[in-house]
């Protein structure tokens, strides 16, 4: 590698490889020198001054170069790497924008044709109306109103007729205006957008549409999409009852599909549909589907009794191949979930096109894009596992959670007892269900599930789930997790060991993988525990959990957020048994709010042509004061024979405590309380407003360093706070207690420490540095207290998630409370600024 790069560097005009010699002339580094430098660079791109000196002394080739030149060489080299990365990033952004552009132009073209066609037609008809028409005009008049005639669903010919009708209706929605489409609010039209999304405003049922460009061939896409259980997390099963060929090489299938209910408050839905797969004259492929009337049911009448029959109106997928091997795909989902039969409070969920869009339509497109990326090798492997295997893990976690929430009889669940007061339902499942996975579970008496659904007010799903994920110790009892883990592992021996474990309360999250847009993250959580038993103190009692976290993007309107985890063996073999538990939070928007939301949302997303990309500066859900959502909790506990009663009691108690913790957290996170992470809001009581703090920070900086941290020419402290907040360097403030604790950080500071304004108050200054970092900080800290400021050299610190951060430089200064007209300039806090920081 050094060789190739060395040649590369010799190309003309390359400034890195020149330096000033003793006589002040520009001299090039020789090939050997460059090679040596590159070798060191590949091992250590940021050598300390000590290391650089070592390098000069050890390496005779570099002997006559000034240390400063070496330093400059490394700086420039790092800079070039950065620029290279930037170039490839810009390149990929460019590709996405171009693809989007192509899509949009196509749609534009089609729409223009449509409009001109309609204009011609209308003109023609107007002409006809004004002339007199013949007496025996016996042409077929087309009935303008779409008629839902009763077709014969019992013969292939009849079915074919229905199929053709379905095709026509689907196409008129996919590329036409048969449904009154409006742009999906919150859709980012920027380079990272997956596609173009639209939802219905008022029509029978709810509908969503997606349009995107995917680099997969059409047949592969058809195959993936038809296999609904593989990408539609809510789909429990899909059975093809009959399949027969239709005319032009297509097929007609009769399908029974069951979907999971999202909460414990309403039953699940099922569908009996006809699916027609065919190809069009223009080379496109179509898969369209609609419900058939009639009582087509699954083989087991018992199971379908637990379902409410829902209706699928003509929906489907239109896939057109485009040059370059990719395809343009249009997806339409139009369903009627029979919301009239669910409790009032839940109804908005069943009548929301945004929820359908997120769960079905956008999910489908994202999945295809994910598969395309995996095939192109663009996905990073986590811990040596293939992306497809990781996806299986997340699918199993999702499915297991859904299974627990729904508790279907034919899966082996039966209701144990309902704890009436708290609306907690307890259900039990026998081991038959789990033995599919592993023989080691044969000693188990079964799995017990405690679940509940409830309404939460004034909190955004994304914010809540993010908090629950980052601060597990706020709601979880790690001993319970240890119990579940041990019970799954082996027999009685492991169980007795748990009682003697102490947990530190901290968790370490190790990311395994995430989807392209990071709307789903798969990770392993390690709960550190130590054995309390004297002889075994060296034994690690760590508990590992496999966890998925979805929907933490606050801008995704209608998306539900989930945190689902299951105890797992440290090695987590591909077929490890998973008994998931978790939380699901779904936003409920009120019907009346919808129209207004859509108007303002469209206004925002389309009018941002002035800014580079649409950022998340205006969050839809956060600004709405009456955000309501439904929280569903389901926790599963494996239990040994004869211990069902004990475990049931423990489960109920635990669930109750978790629920009250979550409710407490929800209250703390609501915008009306003072602790919302939005700049300009109040900091905890006893400290000045954030605006005042910003003023003090910048004034003190000026006093100590003589230059301006922020532009003071602008009017008002509000813009000062805004500048501070948006500053690219991480700026943090910590209190002056004997153990300094952080009390404020700007956006960059929160990003660096991977925390929130609420949580940062738990972090001590010491915690963000490791051993050597703390040692290095000591003398600087003394200097800071003595002279009021200090400059720290480049170094490292650690985020709350355990990620290492390196920074080029840091400064610290005392922040004085500057009360006007009052000589009381007492010291308020310490400020730290970390310049040019990045994750390692």
């Amino acid at each position, binding site marked *: 590698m050094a060789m190739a790069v060395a040649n590369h560097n010799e190309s003309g005009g390359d400034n890195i490889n020149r330096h000033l010699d003793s006589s002040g002339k520009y001299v090039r580094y020789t090939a050997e020198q460059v090679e040596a430098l590159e070798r060191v660079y590949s091992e250590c791109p940021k050598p300390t001054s000590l290391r650089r000196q070592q390098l000069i002394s050890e390496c005779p080739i570099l002997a006559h170069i000034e240390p400063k030149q070496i330093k400059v060489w490394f700086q420039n080299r790092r800079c070039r790497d950065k620029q290279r990365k930037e*170039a490839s990033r810009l390149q990929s952004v460019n590709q996405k924008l171009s693809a989007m552009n192509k899509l949009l132009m196509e749609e534009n073209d089609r729409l223009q044709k449509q409009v001109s066609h309609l204009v011609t037609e209308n003109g023609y008809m107007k002409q006809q109306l004004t002339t*007199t028409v013949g007496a025996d005009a016996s*042409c077929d008049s087309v009935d303008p109103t779409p008629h839902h005639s009763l077709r014969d669903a019992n013969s292939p010919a009849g079915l074919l007729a229905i199929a053709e009708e379905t095709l026509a209706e689907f196409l008129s929605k996919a590329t036409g205006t048969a449904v009154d489409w409006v742009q999906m609010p919150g859709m980012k039209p920027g380079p990272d957008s997956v596609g173009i999304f639209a939802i219905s405003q008022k029509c029978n049922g709810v509908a969503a549409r997606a349009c995107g460009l995917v680099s997969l061939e059409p047949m592969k896409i058809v195959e993936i999409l038809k296999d609904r259980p593989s990408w539609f997390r809510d789909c429990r099963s899909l059975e093809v009852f009959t399949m027969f060929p239709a005319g032009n090489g297509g097929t007609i299938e009769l399908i029974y599909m069951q979907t999971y209910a999202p909460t414990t408050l309403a039953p699940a839905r099922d569908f009996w549909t006809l699916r027609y797969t065919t190809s069009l004259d223009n080379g496109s492929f179509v898969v369209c589907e609609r419900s058939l009337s009639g009582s087509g049911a699954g083989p087991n009448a018992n199971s379908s009794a637990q379902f409410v029959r829902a209706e699928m109106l003509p929906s489907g997928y239109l896939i057109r191949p485009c040059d370059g091997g990719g395809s343009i795909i249009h997806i339409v989902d139009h369903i009627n979930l029979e919301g009239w039969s669910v409790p009032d409070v839940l109804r908005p969920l069943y009548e929301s096109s945004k929820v359908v869009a997120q769960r079905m339509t956008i999910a489908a497109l994202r999945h295809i894009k994910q598969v395309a990326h995996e095939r192109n090798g663009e996905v990073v492997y986590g811990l040596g596992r293939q992306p497809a295997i990781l996806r299986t893990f997340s699918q199993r976690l999702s499915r297991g959670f859904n299974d627990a929430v729904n508790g279907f009889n034919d899966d082996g669940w039966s209701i144990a007892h309902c704890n009436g007061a708290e609306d907690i339902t307890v259900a039990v499942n026998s081991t038959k269900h789990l033995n599919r996975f592993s023989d080691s579970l044969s000693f188990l008496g079964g799995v017990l599930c405690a679940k509940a659904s409830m309404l939460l007010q004034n909190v955004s799903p994304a914010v809540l789930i993010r908090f629950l994920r980052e601060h597990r110790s706020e709601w979880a009892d790690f001993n319970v997790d240890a119990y579940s883990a041990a019970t799954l592992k082996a027999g009685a021996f492991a169980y007795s060991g748990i009682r003697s474990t102490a947990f530190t309360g901290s968790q370490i999250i190790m990311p395994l993988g995430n989807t392209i847009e990071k709307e789903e993250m798969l990770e392993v959580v390690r709960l550190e525990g130590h054995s309390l038993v004297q002889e075994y103190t060296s034994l690690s009692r760590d508990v590992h959990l496999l966890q998925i976290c979805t929907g933490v993007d606050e801008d995704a309107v209608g998306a539900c957020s989930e945190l689902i985890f299951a105890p797992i063996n440290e090695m987590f073999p591909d077929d490890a048994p998973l008994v998931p538990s978790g939380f699901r939070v779904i936003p409920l928007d009120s019907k009346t709010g919808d129209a207004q939301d859509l108007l303002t949302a469209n206004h925002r997303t*389309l009018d941002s042509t002035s800014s580079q990309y649409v950022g998340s500066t205006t969050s839809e859900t956060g600004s709405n004061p009456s955000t309501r959502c439904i929280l569903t909790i389901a926790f599963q506990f494996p239990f040994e024979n004869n211990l069902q009663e004990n475990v049931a009691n423990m489960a109920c108690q635990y669930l109750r405590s978790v629920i009250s913790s979550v409710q407490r957290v929800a209250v703390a996170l609501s915008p009306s309380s003072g602790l919302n992470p939005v700049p300009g809001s109040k900091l905890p009581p006893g400290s000045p407003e954030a605006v005042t703090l910003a003023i003090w920070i910048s004034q003190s900086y000026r006093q100590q360093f003589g230059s301006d941290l922020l532009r003071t020419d602008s009017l008002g402290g509000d813009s000062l706070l805004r500048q501070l907040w948006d500053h690219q360097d991480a700026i943090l403030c910590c209190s002056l207690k004997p153990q300094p604790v952080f009390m404020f950080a700007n956006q960059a500071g929160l990003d660096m420490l991977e925390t929130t304004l609420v949580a940062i108050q738990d972090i001590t200054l010491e915690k963000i540095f490791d051993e050597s970092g703390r040692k290095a900080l000591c003398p600087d800290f003394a200097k800071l207290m003595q002279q009021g400021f200090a400059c720290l050299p480049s170094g490292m610190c650690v985020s709350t998630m355990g990620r290492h951060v390196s920074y080029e430089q840091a400064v610290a200064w005392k922040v004085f409370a500057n009360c006007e007209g009052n000589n009381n300039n007492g010291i308020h806090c310490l400020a730290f600024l970390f310049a040019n920081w990045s994750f390692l």
Partner: protein
Amino acid sequence: MCYKERNQAMERLNSKLYVENCYIMKENERLRKEAELLNQENQQLLFQLKQKLSKPKKNPNGSNNDNNFCPSSSASGKS
């Protein structure tokens, strides 16, 4: 290997594409609404024509009139 300028140029191009995309999206939205209106008008006209065609005997002007114009079928099914 002048990354700086190249990156700046790419950045400019990306911005231009982005703005163009936003513009086209707006335009498409407008066209969609227009198509919707025209469609409604279309339905009405069809209905009127149908009405007109279903009252042939009352027309005093011509039983032998051969003006046998059929309205073209449109309604749904555009792809």
